[in-house]
């Protein structure tokens, strides 16, 4: 949204102030050089993804005997994908659904908790406000892996280690999300609007749900996406918590396949096929949701 407004004055100003005779020529050549540079960088970011697309269409023998950057004569993509989803009674599908459950439910609830907390810290002056915020901000800086080990011991004593809960419960807290919500609520939720709602006789909790959540929506989308990707990418927590392969998220599952390739080369096909299937939904989500990332991040950065 802000791109055209900041970009336009720059271009109009430059064409207006500099002489028109020299500018167009240098502009065109700069454009070619810069675009060429960006293409080279884009190749770097896309080559591994391209390789896995190519590799997942090959049989195991072709994988080692043909050029990695081009397709082999035998097109085995559908056989490979069938092998991936049917291996071990469809365990891959189960891992995928587990990841969806951990990331989807975890991010949704985490966003709600962060919104309520951030709104409370931004819109009420009460004793302990600063202390609570400082404590939570400290939580942003604590390495997630430092808490995972003691958390495992704690959950073992509570009897919930190696269950869905052991991964889901720690995913509900997003100190960074609360931080973003507080900044956004501070800047956008109008005090007069809240006072008006109070005069209408609405309770404080109701005001948050009806007025607060609606105004916070753009920030909530960003917090949700951050938490979704964070949980989906998390590896250390499930690795520490889970021993039952049926509860594994996709990251843990694919790594157990990769660790078997030295003994059983057919796991190369399973791993490349599985990686391809797991990247497709992420790639689509990243590209479709890109504008939401930008919007929310800008709001956070303006303050």
């Amino acid at each position, binding site marked *: 949204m802000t791109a055209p407004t900041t970009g336009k004055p720059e271009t109009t100003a430059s064409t207006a102030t500099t002489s028109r005779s020299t500018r167009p020529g240098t502009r065109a050549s700069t454009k070619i050089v810069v675009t060429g540079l960006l293409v080279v960088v884009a190749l770097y970011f896309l080559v591994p993804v391209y390789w896995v697309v190519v590799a997942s269409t090959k049989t195991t023998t072709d994988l080692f005997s043909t050029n990695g950057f081009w397709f082999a004569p035998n097109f085995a993509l559908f056989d490979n994908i069938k092998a991936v989803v049917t291996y071990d009674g469809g365990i891959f599908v189960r891992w995928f659904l587990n990841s969806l459950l951990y990331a989807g439910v975890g991010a949704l609830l985490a966003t709600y*908790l962060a919104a309520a907390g951030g709104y*409370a810290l931004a819109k009420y002056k009460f004793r302990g406000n600063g202390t609570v915020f400082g404590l939570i901000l400290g939580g942003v800086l604590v390495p997630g892996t430092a808490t995972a*080990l003691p958390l495992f011991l704690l959950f073992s004593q509570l009897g919930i280690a190696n269950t869905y809960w052991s991964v889901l419960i720690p995913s509900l807290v997003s*100190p960074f999300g609360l931080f973003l919500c507080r900044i956004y609520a501070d800047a956008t939720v109008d005090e007069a609007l809240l006072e008006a709602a109070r005069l209408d006789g609405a309770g404080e909790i109701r005001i948050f749900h009806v007025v607060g959540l609606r105004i916070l929506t753009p920030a909530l989308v960003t917090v949700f996406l951050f938490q979704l990707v964070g949980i989906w990418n998390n590896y250390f927590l499930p690795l520490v918590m889970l021993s039952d392969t049926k509860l594994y998220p996709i990251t843990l599952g694919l790594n157990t396949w990769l660790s078997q390739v030295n003994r059983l080369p057919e796991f190369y096909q399973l791993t490349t096929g599985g990686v391809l299937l797991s990247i497709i939904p992420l790639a689509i989500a990243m590209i479709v949701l890109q504008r939401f990332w930008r919007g929310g991040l800008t709001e956070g950065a303006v303050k």
Partner: protein
Amino acid sequence: MSSTAQTSEKAGPRTRRRSTPTSRAPWLLLAPFLVVFLLTFILPILAAVGSSFVQVTRKGLFGEAGVSQEFAWFHNYALALQNSSFISSIGRMFLFGIVQVPIMIALATVLAFLLESASAKWPGAFRAAYFLPYGVPGVIATILWTFLYVPGLSPVIDVAKWMGIDVDFLGAGTVLWSIANIVTWSYTGYNMLIIIAQLKSIPGELYEAAHIDGASPWRVARSIQVPLIAPALMLTTVFSIIGTLQLFAEPQVLMSVSPAIDSQYTPNLSAYTTAFAYNDYNVAAAQAVLIALVAFVLSFAFLRLTNRKS
């Protein structure tokens, strides 16, 4: 009750001494977050700090005669610091961070400037391509790059060989930089997006004024854009420093194809091994506390250093 609260609200919104709905409301709203935060952040941190000061001794050959716990002061910390593998893993991360973090932040900054300079075609498509790796989990990114590192499978090695160069991505001297490449690949786009967000928040009038003054694009970048994106650069650098000290998934996955990576290659890997392979939770707790402390000290040192400069 509610009617009296309403009147006191009308009289003055700042008087919230008594237990009115407005004084209870923030705690009610905060409660769910705080409960989970206490359970999954504060309690484990306290437990880690607590158990790092405790020594567990098992009586009998296999601990069959019972287990006793006693306060051991800094015994576990001494053990952790005497472990040369743990110390060298921290040194390895220093080396890694000093090289990888500046390269990544510089690359992210340059890409952000080029995409925002309006002198490139299809900026949206490029931005999407650079940001894509952030959505690929570290484990899967490592698996992807593993395929490009393993001899016999990697087309990159084939191409290099054809050009007469022998490359070994998984050797003792190179594997650290192979990991650095994976981390750079994963997070450059994310850092770039944060910098772009800050660039967009620069008011258009500043650019206009600069152009009226006849400033060159280079001068605009140096005198307006770089100073104004400094907060974003600091944020991304601090997150990268913390991330470097937490490195775990990438070396752990590469371990299965590279003999150069041992079970204590990074500080986190060392703590994980101490806890789950050696079952020594107390020393592992001391290691976790030390890692967190180093992350804190480095982040604050960096912030102090940059604040003093400006």
